[in-house]
């Protein structure tokens, strides 16, 4: 089941930061991994992915630099900054609290 774009967009920040916590990745790789790891439920198109990446870069949570990928092509790799690393844990807690609240409200876990 594909998650509605508006809900997916809200989760983009955590999804991207959590992936970059593991290793630096470039845009296409980020989109691909999110899709694979969510079993195809979360899909980020260019229109939703790059504005979020640029926003995170502007806020100083990620930094980007051009480097060649294993195939020798130049790619813009994103990695977490120290500030970005500090954002991941509170964001996770926030989402957890959100899901708990939503569960209590709507009985999500029984769906």
């Amino acid at each position, binding site marked *: 089941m594909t998650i509605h774009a508006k809900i997916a967009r809200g989760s983009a920040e955590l999804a991207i930061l959590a992936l970059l916590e593991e290793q630096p990745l470039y845009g*296409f790789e980020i*989109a*691909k991994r999110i899709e694979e790891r969510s079993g195809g439920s979360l899909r980020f198109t*260019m*229109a939703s992915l*790059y504005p979020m990446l640029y926003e995170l870069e502007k806020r100083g949570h990620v930094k980007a630099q051009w480097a060649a990928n294993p195939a020798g092509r130049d790619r813009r790799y994103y990695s977490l900054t120290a500030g970005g690393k500090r954002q991941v844990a509170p964001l996770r807690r926030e989402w957890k609290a959100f899901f708990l609240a939503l569960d209590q409200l709507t009985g999500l876990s029984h769906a």
Partner: protein
Amino acid sequence: MHDWKRIVRGNLGSLLLSDREGKEIVAELAEHLEELYEDLRADGFPEPEAFEQCLSQLSEVRLAARDPERAKRREGAMNYRSKTLWLPGLVTLTLASVFLMVLQRFALLQPRIYWVDDGALVLHLPWLMLLPLCGAAGAYLSRRAGGRSLNCLVAGIFPAFVMLGVFCLILPVGVFIEHNRYILQHPLYFGLALLNWTVLPGAGLLLGAVPAWGGRSHVR
């Protein structure tokens, strides 16, 4: 082999910001599309369909970039105009009206009337002398909100524009709807009324607005 950079530039050209930023974004999106295209082809999509999917992603980017930009511009324009024109203008109008009302009701202001042929020049001198204060207040508020010179000026003499609008409405309504020919037969009467309620108050307001008009903007 598709020239993705050219395709991206062709689609997003006008939306890209500075040269350096724009070039980087074009390069990054072009790399993304190239990889997406190869991925789709590897998944067995025929060439035209893979290309079409890439283009549809690009048009989504264009729509997403354009809508918030438009909305922001519209919102910005509204806020700016409200802050620097409408609100200070309404303050000027309110002050001028309240002063006239107070002077008439509590200070029992009697206008000086000068008869000129078949018209009368009605002067509320104390009120006219207070108008520069109103004009200064409006122009100052506009300037403080970051208003350009023209906005400060219009905000300062706003009541004169309102009265001019009223007169512009009275003339056609009087003549064409109420069939009142008096205005046409006695243009001096109408001209003097215009002078009483628009030109003279406008001059008074302008006196107050000019100093603030020439000042420096507080916010840009």
